[in-house]
């Protein structure tokens, strides 16, 4: 849930943006980080662990734990607690190791 009226800071959320998680639109506000905006929309499972395939989500919000890794606008392993939302941002969970991308040069 977004906090529209903060008890100390008042109404701070002004510029809404639309972000897409798994191609579904969600409402976020400009000053929020990706992980926080998803949590406001009740999306807490941001990825799966590599070995035991268990859910992972926001843990430290300081860019240290890497628990909030997601794929953002085509880039894998983005620490989503350190990146602000942008209009139209496309976000996917970090559910498995990405394929190694390779550009083929003709042959």
């Amino acid at each position, binding site marked *: 849930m977004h906090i529209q009226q903060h008890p100390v800071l008042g109404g701070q959320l002004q510029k809404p943006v639309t972000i897409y998680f798994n191609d579904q639109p969600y409402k976020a506000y400009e000053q929020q980080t990706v992980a926080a905006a998803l949590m406001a929309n009740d999306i807490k499972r941001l990825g799966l662990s590599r070995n035991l395939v268990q859910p992972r989500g926001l843990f430290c919000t300081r860019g*240290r734990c*890497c628990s909030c890794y997601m794929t953002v606008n085509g880039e894998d392993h983005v620490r989503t607690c350190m990146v602000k939302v942008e209009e139209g941002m496309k976000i996917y969970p970090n559910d498995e190791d990405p394929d190694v991308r390779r550009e083929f040069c003709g042959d």
Partner: protein
Amino acid sequence: MDKSTIICRCEEISYEEIEDVLTNGATTFDDLKRLTRCGMGPCQSKICHSLVADMIHEKTNTPYFQIPLPRMRMPLSPIKLETLATNSTSFSSVKSVMDEVELEDGKVR
């Protein structure tokens, strides 16, 4: 503590796995890294180091001041290789790797 508890979130190393290595003679975090991969995931032991120090303290009766810090290597936090390799002329280890990459029209072949 329940032995299945995860201590290292990144590499998913359990209390039991660390306990096992400690009872078999490991004494430092670096020993644990080599034997279990504990602390070798993306966070580079930023989250588990205090939990591991507690375990070493409990299991081996080592006072905290004798439990060395885990080694902290460059880069200090995750960074894209592409970014790391910029301006690499004065940074020989990256340059030496990048020099081995064959480029064709600016793309990795």
